[in-house]
């Protein structure tokens, strides 16, 4: 795992320029590692060619888990563990269980979704994030290109493509 990774960074001032640049850079056969921007740029994930997130599937599964747990819990409690007659109903009166089941569905779906998102986006508390350029949290858009992923292209050639796509600066960044 401990091998150096080297990146070329294109710095862009303007989101419109960035969007066209992403199309152009990808069109020239360069594989983009990631684009960092200070705010969500509308349409960026589209030009980067990202597939649709599969997070809703996780949400659905966790939601179903919540529903099942809630129903099992209430049914066990009300029917076997400590049967009680409430409002003259049967021990296991299904309509009474719906509010709690609903809440558990929402709770587990939300927690599950946040958890899955954090793990899949490398936002784990113990993760060491790679800071490409601090200005990506302020006023610049940073396009990172992994040199190892683009071995078919000369580094100078990639720099040229970035320059012509409207990058105001081109930097190199290495991580250990």
């Amino acid at each position, binding site marked *: 795992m401990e091998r150096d990774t080297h990146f070329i960074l294109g710095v862009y001032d303007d989101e419109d320029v960035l969007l066209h640049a992403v199309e152009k850079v990808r069109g020239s056969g360069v594989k983009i590692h990631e684009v960092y921007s200070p705010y969500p740029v509308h349409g960026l994930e589209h030009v980067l060619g990202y597939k649709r997130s599969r997070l809703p599937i996780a949400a659905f599964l966790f939601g179903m888990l919540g529903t099942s747990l809630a129903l099992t819990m209430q049914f066990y409690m009300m029917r076997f563990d400590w049967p009680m007659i409430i*409002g003259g109903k049967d021990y296991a009166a299904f*309509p009474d269980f719906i509010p709690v089941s609903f809440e558990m569905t929402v709770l587990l779906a939300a927690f599950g979704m946040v958890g899955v998102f954090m793990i899949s986006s490398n936002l784990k508390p113990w993760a060491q994030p790679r800071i490409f350029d601090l200005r990506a949290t302020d006023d610049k858009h940073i396009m990172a290109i992994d040199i190892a992923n683009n071995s078919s292209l000369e580094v100078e050639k990639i720099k040229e493509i970035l320059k012509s796509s409207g990058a105001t600066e081109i930097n190199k960044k290495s991580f250990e």
Partner: protein
Amino acid sequence: MAHHGEHHYNLEQRFDFTAATKKSIMTVLVIGAILLGIGIVLAMTGGGHEEAGEAGGHAFHWYERLYANLWINNVFFTGIAIVGVFFFAIQFAAQAGWSAPLIRVMLSFGNWLPIAAVLMIGTFFLANHDLFHWTHSYLFDKNDPQYDSIIDGKGAFFYWPMEKGTFPVFYVARMIIFFGFWVFFFNKFKKISDQEDQLGGTSHWFKMRSWAAYFLVFFAVSSSISAWDWVMSIDTHWFSTLFGWYVFASWFVSGLSAITLLTIFLKGRGYLEMINQNHIHDLGKFVFGFSIFWTYLWFSQFLLIYYANIPEETVYFVERLTSDVYGPFIFVNIGLNFFLPFLVLMTRDAKRHGIFLKLVCSILLVGHWIDFFLMVQPGTLGHNGGIGFMEVGMFLVYGSAVALVVLSGLAKKNLIAKNHPMLVESYNHHI
């Protein structure tokens, strides 16, 4: 996408209400009328005799079922009409940009309101005792054996300032005031929108926003009270504090379904070329979301009554759930209005493709009609009700009449508010 290119859409387009379209709607109307006729004949010659001598001494007449049907459709289609105006007003109050090319589609449903007003007031005076138990004067006479202290306590809500049991001044006045103001606001919106077409600029948009806010305040109150008046007062003893919201939710889902269907219909005819999947997706989200909202209210009302188990409250559901006639429809109601839209419209793709929305919205219109059927018929007809030729026929007659009125209204003016300041925002709508 952020590519703000030039757009060349035809903003002068006008819906052409062709003879062929008119003819197909008329065919449905005629089929409905025939079914209605068959239903009336069956009701006149058929059942009902044997129950004539039952306890309570109230003989059942065939025309009561006709009145109940008129009332269901009056309430249901008035709801669709006013929700068209309501959703239009929401767009302005919320300063929405995505919907700018669709605002006249929404507003066109308001064309039914004047006719709905006449039908509603006419049916009330025609049906009177046969629909509304509280219209009997003996209920308020302390010397009468049938004196009813509960209804007497509520009497002022219908009869003020007159004596209880005479003429329901307050009730009729409310009906006239609500329809009067609804029609007034509808005409106001239409007028401002027409002026904007001619003069342009942003001042009309600001003016519309103010009037939309006034309307929304009025609608918030009037929609709730009209639900008590027109629907809840049928079961005079019973009450539910969220009933106004419940009826509104049913109206809103029906109205949104109708707006979505009309949009998809127009798009299929080649109009509204600036409306793309993103706009359809938004409409689909509204239908999906408010179907769940309706379920939430339906269930909240049910659960509290079920849980508390107080006889004067549970009577509403006991009357329905234990009935051979209405019992199954409770589950049909939940199935069509909750499980179907919830499961079918859950995915993103289903909301972006017209075919799913067309299917779900059509079924929702029937589903919410059944909801109103379940609110009106048990209290008016008891076990003499049900869904037969008369119900299907009357629904088709009303539905096609509404379609004729709405589409003729739509054809009168440009389909798109061409000077709406947010049209460009709408072209670039992307979700």
